[in-house]
């Protein structure tokens, strides 16, 4: 079943086509990677999906329902959660409250405060932050802040989680831990759509990869297919030049 589906999604910034006529889909239970050079339009595509931006044209559907142009809080409550490239946490709020917010507001059906606190605690356990419950979020190291943001997004009980460069800025050990985290999230039944620059991670975690370049989708396939694709290699490394010519 298709959880997320975009058709002809287009967004201009001034005269620049940040995302141009992109079709994409994410199936239930998949981990789909979104890669491409800087400025390819990856984050813009996420922004359009989560309604941080509205597309110029095209439609985005979540489980068959058109969600284009809805408000961000509605999309979140329907079951689409996201994290941000530059971590957006509630810096002066304690770690627990960061997560609690999602439990209290992120679902269309209300939840009692006691249940929400319990659930936020469980999620902190899940991402391994239960020891720092009461610490203000800004005092955590980057890797923990990223995990906290994931926990906060998970608190809204999403069916699909959009992760924008979860591993950027992390050291190799932390990257491995993050990869494990992504896999366990999928094992919980949550579909994952992720932007990533760390190739090792994306190649080993994703079921399917999409490549954007200059706002256009240039390739899609399994990690092996993408690694072998001439066009992708060209985009990342530049064209092959024959000696002597």
């Amino acid at each position, binding site marked *: 079943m298709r959880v997320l589906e975009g058709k002809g999604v287009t967004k201009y910034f001034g005269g620049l086509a940040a995302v141009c006529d992109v079709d994409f889909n994410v199936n239930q239970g998949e981990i789909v990677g979104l890669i491409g050079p800087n400025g390819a339009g990856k984050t813009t595509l996420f922004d359009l999906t989560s309604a941080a931006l509205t597309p110029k044209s095209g439609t985005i559907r979540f489980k068959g329902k058109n969600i284009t142009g809805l408000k*961000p*809080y509605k999309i*979140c409550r329907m079951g689409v959660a996201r994290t941000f490239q530059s971590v957006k946490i*509630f*810096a002066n709020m304690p770690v627990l409250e960061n997560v609690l917010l999602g439990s209290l507001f*992120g679902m269309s059906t209300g939840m009692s405060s006691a249940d929400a606190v319990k659930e936020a605690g469980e999620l902190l356990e899940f991402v391994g932050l239960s020891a720092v419950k009461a610490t203000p979020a800004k005092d955590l190291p980057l890797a923990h802040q990223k995990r906290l943001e994931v926990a906060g997004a998970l608190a809204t009980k999403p069916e699909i989680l959009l992760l924008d460069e979860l591993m950027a800025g992390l050291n190799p050990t932390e990257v491995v831990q993050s990869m494990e985290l992504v896999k366990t999230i999928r094992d919980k039944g949550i579909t994952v759509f992720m932007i990533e620059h760390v190739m090792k991670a994306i190649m080993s975690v994703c079921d399917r990869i999409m490549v954007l370049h200059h706002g256009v989708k240039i390739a899609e396939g399994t990690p092996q297919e993408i690694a072998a694709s001439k066009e992708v290699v060209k985009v990342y490394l530049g064209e092959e030049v024959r000696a002597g010519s």
Partner: protein
Amino acid sequence: MNIAPVTSKRLFPLGLLFLVLILLSTLPIYGPKYAVILLTDILLYVILALSWAIFSGPTGYISLASAAFFGAGMYTSAFLGKALPLFVVVGIGGLISSCLAFMAGTLTLRLRGMYFIMFTFGLSQLIKHLILWWEAHVSGTIGRFVIIIDVITVYYVILVLFVMALLIAYLIRRSRLGLALQSIGENEDAAAHRGVNVTVVKVITFALSAFFIGAAGAIMATRWTYIDPSISFNPLYSFMPVLMAIFGGLGQLYGPIIGGVIFAYLEEVLITRFAYYYMLFFGIILVIVILYLPNGFVGLIQKWRKRPLEGQHAST
């Protein structure tokens, strides 16, 4: 072991508050009239600071619309004071301010930072001049008289409004609405993406906070007996709540209360003793506080409280 200090910590401010409230509510019986009037002024400032802080404290949206709400309450009193009983007038004054805040909020809470500040200040001025224009061209007289209510009744109404504002502020801080407001102040985009309907949260809280400012205006108008647009929409009522709340400290509920009390008392003392230098002294004190106490008086108190605790940790 852990529970005992927590409960005593909670009980102490509660008991103190209770004691203060009992003293305040019995004041007219034993206190001189001057004390009643002075405390009315102090409580008015506290209400203004507290109501302002309900919305602007956690969200960081600096509203300069307080004068608009305060003045709207005053004019309600001038129009309806003779026709309706006092409590109804005060209630309507509050509701009109709430409606005003609701409309202004729906229009402008998309604005952030500087733009919101400027708009709210513009709103106060716009309403002032609108009423001035209306009085000059339609009703024919500028300014109007308000029915006179005795000092003690005014005092009790203000006291009730203070208790209500305090209660609402406390409940909001404790509730999920408070958490939502704080998350908006920390990172509005992230809050929206966590399912918080930021517009509704902001507009409702803005309207709620305006209620107390409007109601306070409605009752205070009766003490001043004569009002005109320059008196009721005095920009000072926009700036004072901000200054008092920041002066006291926004981190805790009692910050704006302390700020309001100190400001009102300081104003009283400075005006009576140094009438000519009043604003000068006031300015100097304010500059010193902003420079050296960035978290207000509350920040200072918390620093003092923490110090012995840190000493304990070091010794063990």
